[in-house]
């Protein structure tokens, strides 16, 4: 007795916080780090890059083309390439994810700034806004809904993609899947999938909430249209 495979809940209870590397709690924290850092990085890079692309239009095609090529690179060879520099570390996972994030966010930032109606920009100029103040007080706020829509895609895909890092032993919750190769034991797989989906849903929910707080004028618009 007691030699059969443990039930799902028993397994979770036993592995949640073992104090050793590889506990579910540790994997969860790793997963969060490796998905959130790329999102932040993507935002920090894509915002100024997007602004530059709007200011100097000729920059946009090469920049977005380059980012799309990076986006198209399969992650496995990218990992292999990076291992020689950054080793089997979290950084090796974070770097490609950050670039993927920029690839999605750059068009969102440019699209958001393009969504500022020309007559609004013109009237801001005519009212006597300086270029910087116009950007901060008029153009960026109006771009927020489009940028946030892009950020939602980046957040969810980043959280999901981290698990690929398991191939180099840095997959966060993705690590739970590789064990199933060696041993057809389902609880880790179920826990991995459920936690990743939960994380994605929570991140998406927070961004939706942020959108409501930051852009009340969009929410009201939807209400008025219905």
């Amino acid at each position, binding site marked *: 007795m007691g030699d059969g495979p443990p039930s799902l809940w028993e397994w979770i209870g036993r592995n949640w916080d073992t104090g050793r590397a590889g506990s579910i709690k540790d994997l969860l924290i790793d997963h969060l780090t490796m998905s959130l850092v790329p999102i932040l990085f993507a935002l920090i890079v894509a915002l100024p890059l997007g602004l530059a692309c709007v200011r100097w239009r000729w920059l946009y095609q090469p920049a977005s083309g380059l980012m799309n090529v990076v986006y198209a690179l399969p992650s496995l060879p990218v990992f292999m390439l990076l291992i020689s520099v950054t080793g089997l570390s979290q950084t090796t996972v974070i770097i490609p994810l950050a670039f993927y994030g920029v690839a999605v966010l750059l068009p969102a930032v440019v699209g958001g700034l393009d969504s500022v109606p020309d007559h*609004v920009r013109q009237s801001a100029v*005519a009212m006597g806004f300086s270029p910087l103040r116009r950007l901060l007080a008029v153009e960026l706020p109006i771009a927020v809904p489009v940028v946030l829509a892009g950020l939602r895609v980046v957040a969810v895909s980043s959280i999901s993609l981290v698990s690929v890092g398991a191939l180099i032993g840095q997959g966060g919750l993705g690590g739970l899947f590789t064990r199933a190769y060696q041993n057809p034991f389902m609880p880790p797989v179920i826990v991995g999938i459920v936690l990743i989906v939960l994380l994605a849903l929570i991140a998406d929910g927070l961004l939706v909430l942020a959108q409501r707080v930051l852009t009340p004028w969009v929410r009201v618009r939807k209400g008025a249209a219905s």
Partner: protein
Amino acid sequence: MITFDAVTKRFPDGTVAVDDLTMEAPTGEITVLVGPSGCGKTTSLRMINRMIDASEGQILLDGVPVQSIDPPTLRRGIGYVIQQAGLFPHRKIVDNIATVPYLLGWDRKKARDRAMELLERVGLDPALAGRYPFQLSGGQQQRVGVARALAADPPVLLMDEPFSAVDPVVRTSLQEELLRLQGELNKTIVFVTHDIDEAIKLGDRVAVLRVGGRLAQLAAPKTLLSEPSDDFVREFLGHDRGIRRLQFVSTEGLRLRTDLTVRQDGGGSSEEPWRLVVDEQGGPVGWISWSRPDELEPFGTFLYGRDSMRSALDAALLSPSGCSVAVDDEGKVVGVATREALDEALAEAADG
């Protein structure tokens, strides 16, 4: 006063938008720039607040060249209204109106109080203050646009086809509102439009521009209609400029007959073919004729001394009697202008 001194605008591709323009927009008056598309009217307007810089010549604002003033500073002192209002979608109406006061560093409360005052001044419900622009109709948005332009009380107002995106009924009310506001505020207004009727209605002076940015004629609307300088202006004014000129002829001296009115309770025979029935308050009810004494026929009225000859003539055409009814502010009948009286006035207008 705004002075254009031999101003030319040549774009990098070689197009000349404005060609050697010299004119003045006097203080406290509405100067309208009108012309077909490509005549440089909007370019001329935008050179005043330096949204476009002139290639040659200079523009003076009360004697000071605008080139010598830093653009944001210059623009904060000049109200600007554009076609689609250009309101900020992410700001509430009150904050939209207070835009320039905020830029000038006014205290927030003072700026908002001023915005509320202007909201009422342009004829809008103060309850709209907390709304966002998309929740307002096109006409309301345009009024907010005017309020925003007036917020910091600039002496100069530039208006770039502000009323051309709204329907005709709203446009008429906005035009009247502007004239009423101007009566109170006496701003120096430069108004751009492609609509000659709007130009004639609003302008103290109208500058007609031709394609290529050359000034064809600058004159008071009445002069423009009676003495167009050349075929281009004549054609641009359209076919019925004789009729339109009547809107500048007052009905003040129009001869009225007071013996054609009868009370509602009837009676009072007369030799006249038509008699006007009035009610107890003295308001017009309808015309009756000899042939059909039981039927009231429609009538048309004009405000005596206030409305133009064009309105008086229009009122006459609305009634089978051929006469128009002169009323006062309270709608009481002052008298009747018969065809003979209208004829006399028209003959006088044609002479003068």
